[in-house]
């Protein structure tokens, strides 16, 4: 893998399963392991789903019945790789413009002993619009402008309740 730059998150984990099984659980089975607290809906999340095909939606279903999109499948190559647009803004809202979305690539590589190495890269944080520079500053310098933008969005969210 390439060196990690300041706006990329890279993770590797090895699992005791075939690439086929690992791919299946990661995508079709995403609701079985996805952290329940992580969503951008206004009511608690009931379920999160990935439509398993190129162009498929990634979305959550909430207790109030609402559905919230948070991504889209860009590359679909089971069981070895997929790429999804991560359509969440730095203000914790939905980003409809793919050109402004960050991206997550997950690859599944056969390893010794029937295991699979799973490599995940979350990249292109810098695409996330006018906040990109501030985000870089935040990465390097701590707090900064990022939290102000986050504050504005959170305040807007509570005002509509």
């Amino acid at each position: 893998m390439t060196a990690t730059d300041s706006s990329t998150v890279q993770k590797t984990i090895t699992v005791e399963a075939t690439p086929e099984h690992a791919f299946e659980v990661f995508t079709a089975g995403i609701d079985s392991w996805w952290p329940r607290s992580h969503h951008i809906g206004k009511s608690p999340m009931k379920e999160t789903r990935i439509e398993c095909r190129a162009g498929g939606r990634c979305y959550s279903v909430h207790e109030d019945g609402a559905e919230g999109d948070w991504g889209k499948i860009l590359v679909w190559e089971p069981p070895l790789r997929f790429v999804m647009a991560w359509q969440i803004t730095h203000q914790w809202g939905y980003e409809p413009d793919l050109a402004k979305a960050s991206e997550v690539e997950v690859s599944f590589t056969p390893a010794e002993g029937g295991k699979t190495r799973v490599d995940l890269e979350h990249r292109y944080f810098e695409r996330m619009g006018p906040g990109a520079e501030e985000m870089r500053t935040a990465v390097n310098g701590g707090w900064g402008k990022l939290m102000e933008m986050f504050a504005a969005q959170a305040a807007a969210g509570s005002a509509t309740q």
Partner: protein
Amino acid sequence: MNSYQELKLDALGDLTRRGILAQLLNGPLPVGELAGRFPVSRPAISQHLRILKEAQLVTDVAAGTRRLYAINREGFNSLREYFDQFWETALHEFKKKVESRDV
């Protein structure tokens, strides 16, 4: 992955808690004042504050007879840091699930 990172991730995953952090960015507040700004009960706000405090995102200080809650600026650095922790947690959960073979 340490438990502090898990706490921080959970703390940031909730809309009300993100809202509380946003309010506290403008300055320290007592719990009663915060409760008036959200459509949830005061005990619920206290519980959210406890979670934020355990995650080291919020600190509290005594001010006379009141207790003020404030952002802990050392608690987190960036969205990238958030996702770094998010994926750490998520992949850990994924590994547990994929190896349990009960999907």
